[in-house]
Each structure stands twice: as structure tokens, then as C-alpha cells.
């Protein structure tokens, strides 16, 4: 079935550095999302993106976070600078319609900030 690919699967960086998480969504999907999951906790919504714009973001989406999808390429989450509390698994998802329909998730990128 349709797949969302996330690159890399694991990223280790030093606190204060910049990191970019990449997501290749399902090809005909129009809505894109990032969710954050701290170990042992629930997945939490960060942001959704449609038609080149952030549509909604949560309070977890700090000023250091940004998203973009230039020219239909990867949908990216950039964190600059990173903090220790950014360590988590980040899941990218996409959907053809809204989140009230079917979300397709990637395998996640585990981010470790040292």
C-alpha cells in the first residue's frame, strides 16, 4: 500500500546544533503532519501543512521549529537550535484529505539530542 518514508531513521546530534528531518509523503496526498512521541508517552500533534502553509500548530511547535516542502520535494521539519527536550521519535504523516480521514504514517525518526 501507500508508504510514507522518513529519513534518517535515527539521528544523534549535540544540543544547539541544527537538525532536519525528512519525509517523503504519499505521492497524491495534500495534507502533511508531524507528530512527536517521547518514550512511553502518547504521540502528540506538532503541526499540519497544506498548500505550502502551516494550517495549525500546537504549543509543542516552538519557535525553533519550522516546516517546509519546497517544490514538492521532501516535507521537512527543521529544529534550530536543538534542545535536550527535543529528544523523541518524530512521525511524519500524510493524508489525501483531512485528518478526519485516513492518515498514513512513516516509521518515525528517532532524534537523540546529547
Amino acid at each position: 500500500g501507500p508508504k510514507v518514508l522518513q529519513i534518517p531513521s535515527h539521528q544523534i546530534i549535540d544540543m544547539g546544533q541544527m537538525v532536519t528531518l525528512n519525509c517523503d509523503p504519499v505521492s497524491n496526498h495534500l495534507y502533511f503532519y508531524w507528530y512527536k512521541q517521547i518514550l512511553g508517552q502518547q504521540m502528540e500533534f506538532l503541526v499540519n501543512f497544506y498548500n505550502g502553509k502551516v494550517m495549525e500548530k500546537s504549543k509543542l511547535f516552538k519557535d525553533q521549529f519550522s516546516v517546509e516542502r519546497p517544490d514538492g520535494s521532501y516535507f521537512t521539519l527543521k529544529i534550530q537550535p536543538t534542545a535536550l527536550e527535543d529528544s523523541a521519535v518524530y512521525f511524519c504523516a500524510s493524508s489525501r484529505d483531512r485528518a478526519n480521514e485516513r492518515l498514513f504514517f512513516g516509521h518515525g525518526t528517532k532524534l537523540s539530542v546529547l
Partner: protein
Amino acid sequence: QQQVRQSPQSLTVWEGETAILNCSYEDSTFNYFPWYQQFPGEGPALLISIRSVSDKKEDGRFTIFFNKREKKLSLHITDSQPGDSATYFCAASTEGADRLTFGKGTQLIIQP
């Protein structure tokens, strides 16, 4: 305050039995409730969903029972198979909203 709660945290049943996973929510505006299944090393995948206008949704061995008054729902997996061993997430959203609110998940183990 956790908006979506799941219980139990972990559940082990024998192959062939019915597994019952519980979910409750706080926000009365929630009206769409998907369940996602996640295998180790993979992302969550939509298993089955229900809207608040219904009290039951069935898809093969998987059935959601929904009680709007009590803000509770449950996922029943009949004739459990070892391949059903996974983590199951209950989620909720409001019509027109693009965010899903997830529970912490129930880790289900089916013993052969």
C-alpha cells in the same frame, strides 16, 4: 490533563480468545475515533474508525463499541491471532480539525 486515556497499558490473551481494549476521552466535541495499529519498528496504521453518530462499527474480527454518554469506547478483537500482537492506539478528533489526539496505547500480546 490527558484527553484520551487507554487501558490496560498491556494485555495478554491466548490465541482464539477475544481481546478487549478500552479508551475514554474528555472532550465532548470529539466526534471521530480511529484506532491505529503499530508493529515494532513501523509507523501506526489505521485499523478501524468510528464516528459519534454510530454506536458500533465492525470490520472482520475487529469491532468498536462506542458509548457517547459515558465518553467511552472499546476495541474488541475476536479470535485473536499471534499476528495481532502490536500496540493499539485510540485517537480522537473534532469535525473540521486536522489534529488527532492520541492515547498512550495498549500493548497487546497474543500467546499461541
